[in-house]
């Protein structure tokens, strides 16, 4: 039974360190990347996965009971809300004109140019 708890400790330590490294990666990407879209991309994924790993690493410290349910709730909430925030911030930044370096711009052909000859119901361009 002691080796089982040791394995649990090693897993928790790995999860904690990975979560911390992902958070540091989010900070570095947010500081170093050049654009709103790239910063959003760098910030959102470590935000979700890092919090999930830290919750998993912290869970053995809380023992059994209702606290683990609260941790699962925090992770579920973050999983639900992070894409919403990322999509809304990205759309708002696009409308404000801060996203420029796009290869394929489906949003412009569908919404911002209603008199374009590619109408609103044309299929998206092939990649």
């Amino acid at each position: 039974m002691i080796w089982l708890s040791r394995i649990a400790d090693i897993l928790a330590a790995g999860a904690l360190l990975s979560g911390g490294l992902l958070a540091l990666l989010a900070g570095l990407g947010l500081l170093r990347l050049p654009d709103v879209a790239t910063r959003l991309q760098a910030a959102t994924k470590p935000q979700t996965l890092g919090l999930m790993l830290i919750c998993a690493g912290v869970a053995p410290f809380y023992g059994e009971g209702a606290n683990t349910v609260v941790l699962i709730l925090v992770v579920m909430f973050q999983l639900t809300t992070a894409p919403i925030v990322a999509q809304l911030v990205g759309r708002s930044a696009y409308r404000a004109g801060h996203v420029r370096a796009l290869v394929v711009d489906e949003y412009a052909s569908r919404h911002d140019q209603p008199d374009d000859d590619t109408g609103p119901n044309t299929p998206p361009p092939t990649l």
Partner: protein
Amino acid sequence: MSSARSANQRRVSNSNEKPDPKKGGAMTTVLAITDGLLATAGLLILIRLLRGPTIHDRLVALDTFVTIVISGMLVESARRGESANIIVLIVVALVGFLSTLSAVRLMPDEELP
């Protein structure tokens, strides 16, 4: 089942000067390193928050900073071994999400820098 808590109880119960020389010290070190990583990430995010040229950069930085704060509260309460304020995490997550959402939704589209 809860190995870290059992390590703490063992430390409290029988020996008082050298608790559990391998496991307790190792987990304390891991928690301290995680705290340091989170603090560094928060510092970098705060630099972006102060420097960010557009308001969207600041919004992304704030939303990420809320997550860093939640992670830091988790690690800190694990270091202290108390779990009384874990309900606050849900409130912090909810308030951060709603603030970012309302800031994005109420922002005008073109005029802001």
